[in-house]
């Protein structure tokens, strides 16, 4: 297992380098002039030119790339062009927020999705199965940004049960920090719950039809024990794969949810950077997203090996 982990991590290094290079040059295609955006419409052409020079974006692209990559490998990702803050400081503040939301949503998705999927599989063809299928189809169809707006208004503003937006003053306690995450995590987790429910149902139905399950049931083993001891583990592999993919989707979905709830995470930060051609932030944002996906894939590989001894390396 350790060898597998080491191999995967080593392979991630050139991949991240390639991603960094690709993103750096792709980001230059953004037609927005950050100097003009910074100074506003009233700025003169001379002021904009002076700002471009001060920002160093009037230099040849290859020089800018060399500067950025040589600093990045030492852990210096530069400064945010639009507020002067160190990128690493912003990442330190924002990554925990987004990851909390994403993993909160994933937890909801796994619990709700598997519960619904297994329930549907155990009642396959009957009305609970059909109802769960309809509900999960709805969950997949409705965009999460719309759900988040509805949640924010009804549960946050109208009913006042939970915060409609991230607190404007820094939360002091863990509870104060978690409370504003409930609605975003739920809104974000709904479509993933639906996807996992569907996958879990079909996977569980397949496993429940296997001979060893039928034998266990024929020998009088209780259904609950058969499901939890024998069926779930074997039905889990495709669900785990899907959950891994869902994690990437959740990071993407977080962008919209963070905007609606004004959550100071990576999504809000990244969108703002893209709109204003804040290239150092775009680069950091994409690198973090890419690194997360790479790490999740490594974890998936490790989980396969744990779930199925046949795929473990020699």
């Amino acid at each position, binding site marked *: 297992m350790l060898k597998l982990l080491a191999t995967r991590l080593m392979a991630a290094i050139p991949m991240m380098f390639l991603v960094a290079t690709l993103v750096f040059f792709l980001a230059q295609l953004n*037609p*927005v*002039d950050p*100097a*003009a*955006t*910074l*100074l*506003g*419409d*009233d*700025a*003169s*052409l*001379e*002021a*904009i030119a*002076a*700002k471009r*020079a*001060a920002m160093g974006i009037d230099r040849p692209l290859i020089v800018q790339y060399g500067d950025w990559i040589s600093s990045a490998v030492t852990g210096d990702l530069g400064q*945010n062009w*639009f*507020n*002067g*803050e160190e990128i690493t*400081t*912003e990442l330190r*503040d924002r990554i925990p927020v987004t990851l909390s939301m994403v993993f909160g949503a994933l937890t909801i998705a796994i619990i709700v999705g598997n519960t619904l999927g297994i329930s549907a599989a155990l009642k396959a063809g009957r009305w609970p199965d059909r109802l769960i299928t309809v509900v999960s189809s709805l969950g997949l169809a409705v965009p999460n940004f719309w759900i988040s*707006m509805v949640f*924010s*208004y009804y549960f*946050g*503003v109208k009913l*006042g049960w939970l*915060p*409609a*937006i991230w*607190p*404007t*003053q*820094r939360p002091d306690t863990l509870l104060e920090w978690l409370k504003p995450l409930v609605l975003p995590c739920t809104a974000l987790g709904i479509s993933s719950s639906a996807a996992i429910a569907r996958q879990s149902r079909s996977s569980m139905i397949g496993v429940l039809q296997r001979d060893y399950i039928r034998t266990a049931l024929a020998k009088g083993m209780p259904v609950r024990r058969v499901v939890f001891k024998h069926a779930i583990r074997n039905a889990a592999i495709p669900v785990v794969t899907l959950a891994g993919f869902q994690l990437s989707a959740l990071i993407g979905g977080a962008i919209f949810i963070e*905007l*609606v*709830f*004004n959550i*100071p995470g990576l999504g*809000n*930060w990244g969108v*703002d950077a893209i*709109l*204003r051609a804040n290239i150092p932030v775009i680069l950091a944002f994409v690198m973090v997203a890419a690194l997360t996906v790479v790490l999740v894939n490594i974890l998936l590989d490790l989980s396969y090996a744990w779930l199925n001894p046949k795929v473990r390396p020699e």
Partner: protein
Amino acid sequence: MRTTKSRMSRLLAVPVALSMLAAACGGSEETAETTEPEAATTTEARQVNTDTGEQTTTTVAAEVTTTTEPIPPASGTLRMVEFSPVTTFNPAGSQTAQSAYLYPAYDTLTRQTNDLTVVPALATGWTRPDDVTWEFTLRDDVVFHDGAAFNAQVAVDNFNYHASFQGNPNAATWSNMVEARVVDDTTFQVEFASPNPSFPLEMSMVMGMMISPNFLDGSDLTRNPQGSGPWIWSEEESEAGVTEVYNLNPEHWNPADQGVEQVTVTLVADNNARMNALLTGEADIMATTRDAQLQTGLDAGMMQISVPNYFPYVFIIDREGDSNPALADIRVRQAILKAMDLEAYNDSIHAGKGDGASGIFPPAFGEFHDPALAASTYDPEGARALLAEAGYGDGLTINMPMMPAISPHMDIIVQMLGAVGITVEIDQINNGELGPRFRSGQSALTWNRALLVHPAKDLGFWIGENAPMNPFNLTDTNDLYDKLQEALSSDPDTAKALYSEITQGLIDMGALIPLGHGGQNGMYAPNVTGVVMGLNMQAPMPYGVRVDG
């Protein structure tokens, strides 16, 4: 038109004005008494009656009066939610849009009251010794957060710093400055190449924010505000791009400004989220409230504050027809004017909350508003007739730039022009590129908007051979430019008549196509008192605001 919806906010104008007068007082103890400045002040001031919308120009002579009022101690936290993030805490590099982040930490030379009058702040008075010179008298008890003292030399150094700051968004104002010079320790003069009547007003904005002399040497102020304001920025408690936190400055010269112990300004970019923050009690003041959101806030018991803010217009730049020969024909340009339905524009863009009056300044600006200019020119049949007369009866195609931020404006303009047979081809550009685009002569005509400050500033943007809106160096506005120079040296009544004449001239020649007026709105919770928002501000100022009302 300036509107303050609730009776409460109208009543607030009185204590606000009093608190602003108190802004010139001395003393630093919480139980201090306010004392009016002793220097006699003479200046032009703009005064708007919030009830009638009428406005008068007056010469303010600040009498030497002494009033005694107990000042309640600062209490609580004022939480503001802002539309745009702060890009820098350096006033010389800051746009007006970010000023809400700078006001707590910096003092300005002047301030605006709720009736848009310019009143003393760091400057106790200002006079105009000649047409091109302003002389300011300063307080002598101001100390910056780093302990440096404020005096005339510091103010002069600040002006030179602003003028020489690379990438200053307000470079147009400073490029007109010839010299700033010290008269004595509390008096300085600033001389311009041409008259600048709006300078005291501009000194209430980011341009008038004074920086500590210890940081005028090129020090990085991006995340390091160094002013003398009522609150001191807290690096530990702030988070860039999220919330900026400011704590009480115990050494501030005016305790009356300090209604709260702490100010927080939080970025909430989404309009609905910002309103939700106010409605759920997460914020006390919501900056930049869309016209269409006002009713939601009012229905929930929130208070509204609005100021006239901008004049949207279409300007035909290429009047010699280099890029589109049709525009050289005055009948075509006048057809464009007649095609504009200002009421429809107001309904569409401002949810009917702006106005459809023509002319640069709305009725709230009695000083500059001219009812004769306000008449609607909408006449689609007349527009078609003019086009036919000019040989474009079968239609005409023009090209206009559009960036995402102005797409609602452009959408309706395209429709209105389309209705009279003018097809608009859109030149899609990015946000922030409109100014550079028309200044470099790449657009024959464009939508734009002027902030309502002073006619001389707006007219100077359009007319004259070297005006920013005249990249082709056309000479057809030279006579109007001469009138503008005459107005700058004239008494207020003559100047007003000349400003109107110039505006009418631009409209008649089919250069300026007015599109009505829009305002800047803010909303605040009913427990908040003392809210003041001035011209060219996107958020109310924190000075004198209390949250324990």
